[in-house]
Every structure is written in structure tokens, then in C-alpha cells.
């Protein structure tokens, strides 16, 4: 193989290289023109998506980060992060957070987000091999390491909470099996199983650039508001990587759009798809912001206005010169922002026996905040439900939904979203393919299915899998007289009510919190003692 650099990089003369020279050698000199293998045999997967690239050298790495600089920066961040985590642990600072409801938001993070970081790492490893352009490959490889680092630092930071609180100890197992965690899992598996260009547009641009501020900004400021310096620190440690990923995302888009006009409609289709997929995925954050944080930072509606409507609006105005328009169905997200958090919390409340975290009803002070933040919708549509359910709890006959929900074939959420213009009516969308019916939560999800039905027909929908009998442990005998498929399915998912999900007031975390800290488990209900006359238990290791 002849090792001929594709561009003339400065030759080493023994003296220390400038950063620019170092970067040029790192990237361009790692590439060569193959002489005894055909290029299309080496770069096997860059043709089939229809994207046309004429000159990979036009790829501008916005950071020109060299490997030694990368290790140096990341190493410094790690040292700072782990010093803070050590101090946090030595001070038992897990007991300084507002109350133990806050810890339940961390359970969403360890069970849902860490698995996505790892899946993203796998995706970037794949595309780090696929692109003929060396600079693009290096950028993908660095991001692969970043994502793995995020999964690790998040696991390390949260492992301290795991010593004291339930429902965090089995996160990789639950990520693969718990019914609502199929939402993040299927999102990344959809991305990883697409082509390299779709992955890079979907994840680097539509998800990282347009949407992830909605995860990191509210989550980390929520952590700060609620005195969790551990989470703030891993958030900041990841955020500087996220800033680099976002810059990469915009570079990817501009590169693809400038290379060939035929790329524009393909890229637009991916933006439409991954914006909607990402938006549906992030609805979980709406529930976290509006209901789970004891001290609230801002509402989901406010966050959506800042991070999508304003920032995204400016971004798509800028991209208009390439012929790119804002994502399809973005108007629906603006209508839904007044509803999704409330609709999700209502759903988690009624399925709390099957959740990985306990669920509670908002108290009056919290409902006043929700009324102020959602003046058009909260008092009219959502306050009556929470008051009705609170009354039933008071009477000792709490409401729960014992049946399994109908799921969307694309995003895998239950059909919990209402019509964009009618908050009294669930949004039903139906399609048929090869003689079989398929159901969707929205026009956005229906569009995605109809573009690629061959792919989504084999979506793994947990509710259907339970009824097919594939969600049972090997020791289960479905013909036994006392066989209960729903109980057995929860055991398969690794969920135990009272330990993972269930009622907050009777949850082991609430009992232990009050015994250990002598402070209320629910800061908005300081006079409610968790129904726990028994001595607090150390959670099972």
C-alpha cells in the first residue's frame, strides 16, 4: 500500500510541531489512496443512502483537536470531576438534596440516559470506520470516546446514590427490558441501524445540535437548584464535549448540503424524521422538569420556547439559504408544549406499579406553580385529574390502571398525546401495510413509519411481546393455575413495586430518607409521614 498523503502536510524536522501542523499530520496523513483494494470495498456503506460527496477535503473540523490535546483536556476534566465526586461522597452530600423526590429524577437518568450514551458510543464507533474522509473519521472516533466517557462518569457519579437509594442498581438490565425504556433503546437502535450519513445527521445534527440542550441545560440547572453538586459536575464535564458535538453537527449539515444539491432533499427527510423522533424521546424531560424537580427551574413550555422556538428558529432561518426548511410538524410541538408534561405525569401515575421510580401527585403549592406556568391549560384540563386522584388516595382507594397501554409503532410511547388542536381527545393515527394494521401517536410518527415500513414492522413493542409470552423468566410456567402474566412480566423487566416504582408515600426511599435525615421525603408535604412504622431497612445491595 502506498502511503501518499492526500494533501501536502508539513514534514517533521525534529522540532515541535505547531498545533495546526500536528492536526494536519494527524488527520490528512492517516489517509491514503488505496492501491491494491478498491475504495468501494473499503468504504462499503457510503453509497447506498444516495448522498453524493465530491471532495472530502472540504470537511472542516471546527476544533482541529489533536489526540494529545484531546487526552490532555479530557484528563484535566476527569481530575476535577472525580475530586468533586470524592468530596461529595465524603460529606454524605446525597442527603443534602432538596428531598428524596429529586433522587427519582436521577433514576430516570441512570436507567434511560446512560444506556443512550453507550448506544451513541457504539454508533460513533461504526461511523468512525465508514467515512472515506479522514477528518470526519477522526471526529467520529473522538465523539465515540466522549460518549463512552459520559456513560462512565454518569455511572460513577450515580453509583454513590445507588448505595443509599433503590431502583438504580440494575440499569443495563432494565434499559434492555423495561417497557418504557424501549423508547430510548429503540431510538438509538433505529439510528445505529441506519446508514452512516443518516446517523450523523440524525444524532449529530437533529439530536445533538437542535435538541440536547433540552436535556443538559434543564437537568444540570435542576441539579444545581436542588443542591446536587455531583450531577452538576458530571453535567458540566459532559457539556464541554456537547458543545464540541453541536459544532460538529452544524459542520456535518453544511458539508453535506454544500457538496451536492441532490443531498438537500435527503438531508431534509432525515431532519424531519430525527427532529420528531428526538422530540418524542425528550418528552420524558418535560415530566422531569414540571413534576419531578422539587425546586423547579423553568417549565417545559419555557424551555421549549428558548431552546427550540428561539434557538432552532434562528438556526433554520440560517439554513434556509441551502434550501432547508424547519422540521415537519414543528408546529405541533409548539401546540403540545402546554400539555405533554401533564399528560406524561398522568400516565406515569396510573402505571406507577410498573415504573422504575415511585410516582406522586403534585401538592397545592406545586399546582399553583403549574397554574402560573400553564395559565391556558393547567387549571382547565389537568388540575381536576390530580385533585380527583388525591381525593381517592385520601379515601384509601387510589386509582391505578391495571391494563397495558396501546403503544405507538414508531416512538413506542403509549398513545397518551392528544390531538394538536383538541386536548380532550387522544390522537389516534392508523395505517395498514401488507394487510396488517399499525397504530401511531401522531402524524409525525405515522410519516416516519410510512417512509420505511420495512424497518418498523419489526419494532419490538413490549406490550405485544408480553402478550406473545416472551417477557417471562425461564422458571415461569404459563400453564400454572396461579400464573399472572403481568406480575411475571414485571419480574422479567426487573421491576418491583415499592423498591423500583409504586406509590411514593410507601416507597422504601421515602421511609429511609425520613429515618436517616429527619427531613420530609416530600418537601411540599412536610407533615405527611411515609406509612412506615417498621424500622428502615438498608436497601438490598
Amino acid at each position, binding site marked *: 500500500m502506498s502511503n501518499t498523503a492526500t494533501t501536502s502536510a508539513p514534514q517533521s524536522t525534529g522540532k515541535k510541531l505547531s498545533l495546526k501542523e500536528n492536526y494536519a499530520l494527524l488527520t490528512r496523513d492517516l489517509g491514503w489512496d488505496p492501491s491494491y483494494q478498491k475504495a468501494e470495498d473499503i468504504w462499503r456503506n457510503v453509497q447506498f443512502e444516495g448522498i453524493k460527496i465530491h471532495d472530502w477535503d472540504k470537511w472542516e473540523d471546527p476544533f482541529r483537536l489533536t489526540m494529545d490535546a484531546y487526552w490532555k483536556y479530557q484528563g484535566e476534566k476527569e481530575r476535577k470531576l472525580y475530586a468533586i465526586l470524592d468530596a461529595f461522597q465524603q460529606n454524605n452530600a446525597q442527603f443534602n438534596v432538596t428531598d428524596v423526590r429529586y433522587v427519582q429524577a436521577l433514576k430516570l437518568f441512570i436507567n434511560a440516559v446512560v444506556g443512550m450514551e453507550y448506544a451513541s458510543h457504539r454508533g460513533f464507533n461504526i461511523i468512525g470506520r465508514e467515512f472515506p474522509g479522514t477528518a470526519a473519521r477522526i471526529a467520529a472516533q473522538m465523539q465515540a470516546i466522549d460518549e463512552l466517557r459520559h456513560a462512565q462518569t454518569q455511572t460513577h457519579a450515580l453509583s454513590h446514590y445507588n448505595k443509599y437509594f433503590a431502583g438504580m442498581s440494575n440499569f443495563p438490565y432494565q434499559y434492555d427490558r423495561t417497557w418504557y425504556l424501549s423508547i430510548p433503546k429503540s431510538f438509538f437502535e433505529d439510528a445505529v441501524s441506519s446508514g452512516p450519513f443518516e446517523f450523523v445527521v440524525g444524532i449529530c445534527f437533529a439530536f445533538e445540535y437542535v435538541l440536547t440542550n433540552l436535556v443538559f441545560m434543564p437537568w444540570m440547572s435542576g441539579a444545581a437548584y436542588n443542591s446536587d453538586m455531583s450531577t452538576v459536575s458530571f453535567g458540566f464535564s459532559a457539556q464541554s464535549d456537547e458543545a464540541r458535538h453541536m459544532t460538529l453537527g452544524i459542520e456535518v449539515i453544511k458539508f453535506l448540503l454544500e457538496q451536492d444539491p441532490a443531498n438537500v432533499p435527503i438531508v431534509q427527510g432525515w431532519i424531519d424524521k430525527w427532529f420528531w423522533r428526538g422530540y418524542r424521546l425528550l418528552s420524558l424531560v418535560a415530566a422531569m422538569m414540571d413534576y419531578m424537580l422539587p425546586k423547579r427551574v423553568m417549565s417545559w413550555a419555557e424551555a421549549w420556547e428558548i431552546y427550540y422556538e428561539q434557538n432552532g428558529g434562528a438556526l433554520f432561518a440560517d439554513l434556509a439559504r441551502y434550501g432547508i426548511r424547519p422540521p415537519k410538524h414543528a408546529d405541533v410541538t409548539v401546540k403540545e408544549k402546554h400539555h405533554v408534561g401533564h399528560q406524561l405525569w398522568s*400516565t406515569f401515575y396510573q402505571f406507577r406499579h410498573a415504573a422504575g421510580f415511585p410516582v406522586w401527585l403534585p401538592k397545592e403549592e406545586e399546582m399553583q406553580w403549574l397554574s402560573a406556568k400553564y395559565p391556558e391549560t393547567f387549571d382547565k384540563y389537568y388540575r381536576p385529574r390530580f385533585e380527583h386522584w388525591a381525593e381517592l388516595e385520601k379515601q384509601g382507594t387510589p386509582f391505578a390502571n391495571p391494563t397495558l397501554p*396501546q403503544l405507538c409503532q414508531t416512538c413506542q410511547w403509549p398513545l*397518551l398525546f392528544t390531538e394538536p388542536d383538541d386536548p380532550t381527545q387522544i390522537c*389516534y393515527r*392508523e395505517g395498514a401495510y401488507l394487510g396488517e394494521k399499525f*397504530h401511531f401517536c401522531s402524524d409525525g410518527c405515522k410519516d416516519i413509519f410510512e417512509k*420505511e415500513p420495512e424497518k*418498523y*414492522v419489526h419494532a419490538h413493542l413490549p406490550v405485544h411481546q408480553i*402478550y406473545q409470552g416472551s417477557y417471562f423468566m425461564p422458571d415461569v410456567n404459563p400453564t400454572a393455575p396461579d400464573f399472572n402474566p403481568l406480575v411475571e412480566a414485571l419480574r422479567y423487566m426487573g421491576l418491583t413495586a415499592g423498591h423500583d416504582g409504586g406509590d411514593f408515600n410507601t416507597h422504601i426511599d421515602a421511609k429511609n430518607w425520613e429515618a436517616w435525615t429527619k427531613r420530609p421525603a416530600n418537601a411540599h408535604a412536610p407533615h405527611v409521614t411515609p406509612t412506615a412504622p417498621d424500622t428502615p431497612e438498608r436497601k438490598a445491595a
Partner: protein
Amino acid sequence: MSTQAIRPGYHGTMKDTVDKFHGNQILNIGWDQHLMYATPMCIPVPPAMPFGALVQQVLPGLFGQHPQFAQIDWTKTQWQRSGEAFTPDMDKSLADNGLGHKAMLRFKTPDQPGLAGAAF
């Protein structure tokens, strides 16, 4: 449109065909404008189950906690099958009422419009 794939002829297996449900079929059921039940339900049912048995024996387990459920006048209930209005024959099976695998059955009870004026 179809999936752009590495090899021509890509097609995922149909994951949820009726043969995988042990003689049952999937039925999705929603009670319009009663959002106490935040999502429609998904249940396995024998295709030969009479529609009347669904109403009398199955629906109370799904929706019976709603205080208006007991007051429903089933003769006035409006039914939808995949978004189209239809009049079920209570004595005929689900299959003979046109409710096949993964059917979407919705019902509306105008005399019981949901609580709090909020479709709850």
C-alpha cells in the same frame, strides 16, 4: 418510499402477526374523552368472543373505576372501528363484527361526557 438498505430486498420480519399470539388477537380499546385513562388499552382476546361479552365482561375490568362507567347506557353508545362509525351486533363475535387482529375500537358516551368539563 422505502428503506434505503445496504442490500436490495431488505425487509424486517413482521413482529406482531396474529399467529404469534397463541390463538388470541390484539384489540385496542379507547373511551373517547375520558382521560382518567390516559392511554387506550391493549388486550389479547379470542376472536370468537361475542361483542356482548366484551362489553359485559371485559370493559368493566378496563374502565370500571371511572364513576361514570356504571351509568353508561350501552344502547346509546357510539362505536368506532378504525375511525369509522359502526353498529356492533352484540351476539356476533368480534371477528364477525369486523374487529380483526390489532383492530382499533373506540366508544363515545355523549350522555356521560367525562368529569370536570375537562373530558376526564
